[in-house]
Structure formats: structure tokens, C-alpha cells
């Protein structure tokens, strides 16, 4: 019966209750959508980086991660290929030879990471082929080169133009190659775009006088969740001079950022909760003050302070539940279509690209976010009602009855 009375009390002042429900609803929407977009953004940053270059697992010669130079490349790829052959059905594999060098045109030059790839293998592990904005993806034809729009602009070259790439060979001499621009790419990451060019693996090996050498093998499990166990197994099966790194080790800052976010989101929740608490205190206090006389009568007929306290908290709880339910409905109405179409933030493309996110954010709603919101908000509503409820139970019956 207390619940029924609480509900009817809520309906007494519909406008006031509605304002509170709407403010709770806005809090819920803010919590859910902010979290969904933040998680979506960070996951996109991670998947973009994995998709653009890193892959889920890389195999290097030990020491390459710290000193990524040619002399730290893998000389004998046969044992690696033999081990990886076992995973050919469950993983996509690509090999690369990578070095730092210079790409020059008649107008300008740029320091870049020159990546020698096997074009058809690379399409299975990275998404660079999806980001071709001009021309075509790299072929195995010697002398072809794939550069980014940023590099093309800097060098003032276009499709079909020639550029020269240069890099140090193993013996310290300079290897160079004249290449023709066959494709221009643009990923979501402006930093990445400025620093990467792609040439066929064989061209790279010839230019660097490093036949048969590769800097890394990229291994992408078909099921990304199996990354860790596959990495552990590869580590145990591969020769000891090689190291196996997962994306968590290759992109530690980004992974740490995501882990940090999981903690800092609670600060955001706390800010929303505090704002809501003050709103609830204010509204419930008004409701309590207006009903002072009524509480006096309740006390007169024998209602205990405990029950009065509980009734007020129940009212706040119902308001919290109503606001949460509405907030969840509105959030779902916003989230579901945006999770498919994404939210186009082209107006912020520059800053988003510098973060490697992309201009369209796809929100990702985790179960924990839903559970947190569904639990936190009604609890916050109840906490907000504690002070007004304490005020109510401190009323002296005779004085409360006299209140008009």
C-alpha cells in the first residue's frame, strides 16, 4: 500500500514529477550515449590502427620492436612459414619488409616508413586496400608505389608520376628505386597517412639488398578473440630468436587509454549523479514541504517515522525508475540507428583524423554501461531523497498538523 500511495503522490503534481523524470531521463541518455560514443570512438581508434598497419599479432626478430632497423629483420623465414602453415585456415598471414627512408619528387621530399608488402596477402590483414581514393591498389609489378594523399600533396605528384625512394641498405650504402605512383590512399589516421608508402615486397628486398628478409609477419586470427592463445602458442613453437607481439603490446598507449577510460567513466557517472542528486533533493524537498500537514496527519494516525521515510524514498525510487526507463527507451531510439549508420562528424574531421578515429563514429553500447545506468540512477534518486525524507521525519506531529 505504501507503494501505491507513493505512486499516487507522484501523480499529484504531474508537472513537477515530469520535470524530475525528464531530468533523470536526460541524465540516463547522457550516461548511455556518452559512454557508447566514447567506447565506439576508442574501439574505432584501436581497430583502425590494427586494420591500417599493426594487425593483431606480429612476429619479429627479438629486438626489432625496440630498434626497428633492417639489420633486425628476419633472415630465415622458412621456420616461421612452417609454423604459420598450421594456422593457415584460422589466421590470415602477411609478411613485410619495412624501413625508414626518403620519398622524393622533383619538388619535395618526405621522410617515410617504406613498407614492402605482398599486395594480395596484405588485403587479408589490413584495410589499406579499402582506402584507395585515386588509382588502384598495389600490384606485384616492380616499381609500383602506393602513397597517401598527404604525401602526394607534399611531393606535388599525382597518379602515374614518378617518385624516388631511398633508404639505407644493410651494408650502409644507400639503396634507391624509381617508382611510379599507381594508387593514392587516405586512411582515418592523418599521422599514419603522412608517414607510410607501400611498394611490393620484392622491390623492397631488391632496393635494400636484403633478399629473403622480412621485418615482420602479421598474423590476424579469423576470430580476433583467439589472439592471445594463438600468440602464446606461436611463441612456444617459433625459434627462440623471434618474438611474438599482440596488438596490446604493439599499441600499449591506446590499450592503456581504453583501460583508463573504463575507470574514468565513473568520474563522469559521479558528475551526472551529483547533478541529479541536487535536482532530486530540490524537488523532493518541495514535495515534502508542501505535504507537511499531511505528514502530521500520518504521524497522528500512527504512521512511524520509518514508514514515512520509506514512503518518500519509494517515491524517489519510482521517479528514478520512470526516468531511467524513459531514458533507456530514448537512448535505444538514438543508439540503434546510429550503431548501424554511424554519426557523421565530418565537421571535426581534422581533429578526428589526427586521433585516427574516422569522421563517422559508430557507438558501441556495452552491457556494463546498461547495467551501471540501470542500477546507478534509481539508487541516486533514492540517495537524493534521503535529506528530504529526514526533514519529513524530524517534523513534530503537532506542528506539522498546524502547517497549512
Amino acid at each position, binding site marked *: *500500500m*505504501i507503494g*501505491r*500511495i507513493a505512486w*499516487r*503522490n507522484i*501523480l*499529484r503534481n504531474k508537472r513537477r514529477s515530469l520535470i524530475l523524470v525528464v531530468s533523470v531521463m536526460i541524465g540516463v541518455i547522457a550516461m548511455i550515449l556518452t559512454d557508447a560514443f566514447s567506447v565506439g570512438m576508442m574501439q574505432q581508434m584501436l581497430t583502425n590502427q590494427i586494420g591500417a598497419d599493426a594487425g593483431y599479432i606480429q612476429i619479429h626478430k627479438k629486438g626489432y620492436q625496440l630498434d626497428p632497423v633492417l639489420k633486425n629483420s628476419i633472415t630465415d623465414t622458412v621456420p616461421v612459414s612452417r609454423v604459420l602453415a598450421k594456422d593457415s585456415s584460422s589466421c590470415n598471414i602477411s609478411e613485410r619488409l619495412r624501413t625508414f627512408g626518403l620519398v622524393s619528387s622533383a619538388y619535395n621530399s618526405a621522410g617515410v616508413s617504406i613498407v614492402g608488402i605482398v599486395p594480395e596477402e596484405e588485403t587479408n590483414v589490413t584495410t589499406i586496400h579499402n582506402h584507395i581514393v585515386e588509382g588502384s591498389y598495389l600490384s606485384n609489378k616492380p616499381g609500383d608505389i602506393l602513397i597517401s594523399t598527404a604525401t602526394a600533396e607534399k611531393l606535388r605528384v599525382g597518379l602515374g608520376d614518378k617518385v624516388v625512394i631511398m633508404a639505407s641498405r644493410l651494408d650502409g650504402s644507400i639503396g634507391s628505386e624509381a617508382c611510379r605512383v599507381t594508387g593514392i590512399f587516405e586512411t582515418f589516421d592523418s599521422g599514419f597517412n603522412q608517414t607510410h608508402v607501400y611498394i611490393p615486397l620484392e622491390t623492397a628486398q631488391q632496393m635494400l639488398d636484403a633478399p629473403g628478409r622480412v621485418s615482420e609477419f602479421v598474423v590476424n586470427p579469423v576470430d580476433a578473440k583467439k589472439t592471445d592463445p594463438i600468440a602464446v602458442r606461436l611463441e612456444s613453437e617459433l625459434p627462440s630468436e623471434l618474438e611474438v607481439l599482440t596488438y596490446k603490446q604493439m599499441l600499449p598507449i591506446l590499450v592503456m587509454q581504453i583501460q583508463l577510460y573504463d575507470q574514468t567513466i565513473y568520474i563522469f557517472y559521479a558528475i551526472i549523479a551529483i547533478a541529479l542528486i541536487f535536482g532530486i533533493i530540490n524537488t523532493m524537498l518541495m514535495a515534502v514541504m508542501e505535504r507537511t*500537514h*499531511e505528514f502530521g*496527519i*500520518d*504521524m*497522528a*494516525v*500512527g*504512521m*512511524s*517515522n*520509518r*514508514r514515512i521515510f520509506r514512503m518518500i524514498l519509494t517515491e524517489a525510487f519510482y521517479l528514478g525508475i520512470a526516468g531511467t526507463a524513459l531514458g533507456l527507451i530514448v537512448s535505444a531510439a538514438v543508439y540503434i540507428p546510429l550503431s548501424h549508420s554511424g554519426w557523421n562528424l565530418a565537421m571535426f574531421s581534422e581533429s578526428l583524423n589526427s586521433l585516427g578515429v574516422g569522421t563517422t563514429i559508430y557507438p558501441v553500447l556495452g552491457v556494463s554501461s546498461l547495467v551501471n545506468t540501470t542500477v546507478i540512477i534509481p539508487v541516486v534518486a533514492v540517495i537524493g531523497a534521503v535529506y528530504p525524507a529526514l526533514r519529513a521525519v524530524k517534523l*513534530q*506531529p*503537532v506542528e506539522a*498538523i498546524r502547517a497549512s
Partner: protein
Amino acid sequence: MDTKEISGEIVRVENVRKIYHDNGVPVDALRGINLTVSPGDFSVIAGPSGSGKTTLLNIVGTLDKPTEGKVFLDGEDVSSKSRRELADIRLRKIGFVFQAYNLNPVLSALENVEFTMMLRGIDAGERKRRGLVLLEELGIGELANKRPNEMSGGQQQRVAIARAISNDPRLVLADEPTANLDSETAVKLLELMEKLNHQDGITFVFSSHDPQVIERAHRLLILRDGQIVNDKVNK
């Protein structure tokens, strides 16, 4: 526990004083009241406005505490009880009828009557049955599902009486119960309370200066300036 076994007394008020402070100035609302109420009484505390009627009723009803003196309910000293204990005493032993009816506006007539039974822990089925019986007895059975704002003053006061007696109290305190009613409705209501007093032995103590109430009371206590100046059996 400071208790006194006083057979045949529901209320005993001993040397009760009540001093209010009005802007720092002490005001003697009650000045040494002594009073006993016996089971089956139908008494009225009469007196001009400001004489202390409502204050006395509030103290007897444990809504207020005396500055001095003691109040015994059913032989139990209630002067030093905690708020929780007093709420429980009011729930079990006292029914209140107020001048302004004071029904819960969000509850129907039946729910208002059920409310006090709910506070006593009576289960839903039983309190609904008893509530309907009470409303029928008081002649407002057809209003069971009406809210207070859909009822006349007289009807609301009948619901208030039903609420007051729903927990079989030892005592019903009625503070100016007819003040807001027209005389015809007031008479009907008084007849109803007389009937409850006669048939069910419910003890009533009124505070009123309504001649109709005073006429019907079996015992008349005249209060003036915080003192009982007359306590007589009404003939």
C-alpha cells in the same frame, strides 16, 4: 517503565502544564490540568478560542508533550515515551477526528480507512473487508471508491470517523469535528458518534464550542485560560 495501574481509566492527566514561547515570551497554554477519562465516556472539552482545548487534546493524544505533569494512557505513562513508541501508542489506542477531516487526498474512502489497518499490519483482504463493513455501518458504503475531493464535508468526516475507529481504539479524540459542517450534517454526525458510543462502547473526547456537541455530551469540561473551571455531568 513508569506505569500506574489505574483500573477503569483510559486517560489520566496529572498537573499538566504547557508553556509555549511566542517570540520568546512564555505563554501558559495549560495551567495545571487534572483530568481522567473513563471507558465509555462521551465528553466534551468546551471553552472559548485560545482556552487550550486543542492543546489539551493534542497532549492527551500524544501529539504534543506537556512542559510539566504526566499523562497516563491505559495506565501507561506516555510523558517520556520516544517518538516511535508514541506513534505505536497512537496507532493501537487512539483514533483522531479533525476539524478539517484531513483524509489522505490520494486515497479513496476505503483506502483511507484501510490505511491505519495497514499500519497495524492487518493483511489486505481482512482490512478491505473490515473497511467496507465500517463504511457501510457509517452509511457511506457506496462512496468506498471515491476520493476525498469527490465527497461532501459530512461524507469526508464520516470517512474520518471510520478511519479513527478502524483499529478498535481505546479512545477517539475529536477536535472540533463539526466546525466545518452545516448544522443538519453536524447533527447526523453527532448521532452517528453517539450510536458508536452506545452500541460499541467507544470512548469519545471532543474539543468543541458547538452547542450541539455540548448538548449531547455526557460530561462537560469547561476550559478557560488553560484551566478546567468546570467539570460536570451533562443532563
